[in-house]
């Protein structure tokens, strides 16, 4: 205690500089943790968070008693895995290809186009998706032009994991490929030179030099994704799917589910139970992530 006061006094100007940040974290990251208490209470607005009755695990029993929790947990993991595998995989391909392009103008222009979708909001993406795929949209007009049957994608749940993956790849390929390109630039050119002298074709050089050298970057990004696997992208899913109940079976994730419980049903306790379940799973995923990271690759440890 004495040491603490002494430290605060000696470096008071430094701590003063950091004070706004500390207050911010306390208010916006630590105070809301009390919200988790509601998971064990029957929250009534007039009784407040402290006055409401304790109900033990009732909310959890209700949540786990139904079928929804399996569905939203599955969707969250499944969609995130699809995004991770195809998002990173395609971005890696894009980076490898961009790196092979020798004409600077084509390279710069294509890279700019590919990176552009990263900069727009999910609502704009949602608008574009709707313009493409709704019953009177670009896709159906094209199908009409070739005399094919129109498709009603906004009432076809089965197609959405694919569509959402395509949208994800479209939006993030540029972002991830820049990270990969930066890593490729870091590979020593001597390795390529000696391979050329040995008569290795460009194809073999990519396969046996570039890809193995990118291993740790890929692992870092993949593990980061695994750490976030229980967190659905609310902006993306709710922006694109919104309140279209037809599509919930394949697109509803934990985040959209708890949002609806809170905002549309006004059920704070229920929503809180779901959120605590998610936070707990998320924590497990991060611990697993750290363990894996150390196990798989020493260079890949992030934290």
């Amino acid at each position, binding site marked *: 205690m004495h040491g603490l006061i002494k430290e605060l006094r000696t470096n008071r100007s430094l701590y003063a*500089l950091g004070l706004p940040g500390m207050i911010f974290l306390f208010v916006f990251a630590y105070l809301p943790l009390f919200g988790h208490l509601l998971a064990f209470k029957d929250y009534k607005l007039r009784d407040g968070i402290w006055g409401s009755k304790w109900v033990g695990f009732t909310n959890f029993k209700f949540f786990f008693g139904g079928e929804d929790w399996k569905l939203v947990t599955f969707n969250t993991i499944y969609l995130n895995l699809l995004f991770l595998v195809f998002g990173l995989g395609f971005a890696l*391909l894009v980076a490898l290809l961009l790196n092979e392009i020798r004409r600077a103008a084509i390279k710069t222009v294509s890279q700019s186009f590919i990176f552009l979708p990263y900069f727009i909001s999910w609502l704009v993406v949602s608008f574009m998706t709707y313009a493409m795929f709704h019953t009177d949209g670009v896709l159906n007009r094209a199908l009409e032009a070739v005399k094919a049957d129109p498709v009603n994608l906004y009432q076809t749940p089965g197609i959405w994991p694919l569509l959402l993956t395509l949208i994800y790849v479209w939006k993030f390929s540029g972002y991830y490929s*820049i990270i990969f390109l930066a890593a490729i630039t870091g590979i020593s050119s001597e390795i390529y030179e000696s391979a050329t002298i040995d008569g290795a074709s460009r194809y073999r050089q990519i396969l046996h030099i570039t890809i193995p050298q990118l291993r740790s970057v890929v692992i870092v990004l993949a593990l980061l994704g695994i750490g976030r696997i229980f967190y659905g992208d609310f902006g993306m899913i709710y922006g694109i799917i919104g309140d279209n109940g037809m599509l919930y079976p394949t697109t509803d994730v934990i985040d959209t589910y708890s949002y609806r419980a809170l905002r549309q049903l006004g059920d704070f306790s229920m929503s809180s139970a779901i959120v605590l379940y998610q936070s707990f799973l998320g924590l497990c995923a991060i611990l697993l992530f750290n363990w894996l990271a150390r196990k798989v690759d020493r260079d890949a440890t992030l934290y």
Partner: protein
Amino acid sequence: MFYMTAALKTKPTTGDRLLAIAVYAIIIAFALACLIPFWLVFLNSFAEESVLQTEGYKLWIDSFHLDAYRFVLAGKQVAKSYGVTVFVTVVGTASALLLTSTYAYVLSHRRVKYRNVLSFLTYFTMIFGAGLVGFYMLMVSWLHLKDSIWAMILPYLLNPFYAFILVAFFRNLPYEIYESATVDGVGDFRIFFRIVWPISTPALATVGLFYALQFWNDWWLSLLFIDDRDLHSLQMMIRQLMSSVSAASYVGGGTAYVSQPPTEGVKLATVCLTIGPIVLLYPYVQRHFVQGLTIGAVKG
């Protein structure tokens, strides 16, 4: 050395040439696929409403009209929404940069004995979140920020991830700067604002752009806390137009038009007005993002 350059200039094989053609084809196709939705939205915002209604979006239009823009700009909503989005982005980014950089500086400073404790407490917020309910109650019941413009700014002022990027940057600054300045009797505030801040411009610019993009594109906070139409950001305006039954009444000021309001065109025009500034600043923005991501990748 001569031997090497000679070897590098050997003629490409047929396989290499085929590979090169495939490479160009795939990249150009994908780049176009990325661009086409933008092209469709931009071009068709100039299309005639009747054509949009009957024929849908086209890759090329024959006649250009400004009706949709005239209609949107005649209304009151777009000015309000632009005001809200610009205010939130400017004030938010400036405050976020100030808060994040000062905090990161303290976390990075060798003299701060408890910097590891602080780092852990910061890191912990990334791995165990409070979640939606606690956050909602904080904002609505405790801070009373429902329908306040600050609801769209305050929650994003300190992103731990960006703070750690800055911590890594500050740690790499030569320590002698502080030592000589301290010997000269310069206080910590002045060292930070007069010495550290100016030499950290590249890192601050990148983090600032990340924040600015987040503030400009956000609609999650508005969705949760903003019902008042006067506080609808541009993103919320798009959302309303996409779901709202009557675009004319939402946009406002439609009295100048006796004929049918350009419902489809209005959405396109609003989307263009929203992403317009990003696209205009894109060359500058892109350069800084690429630099920032490159620094991150090399370090990570």
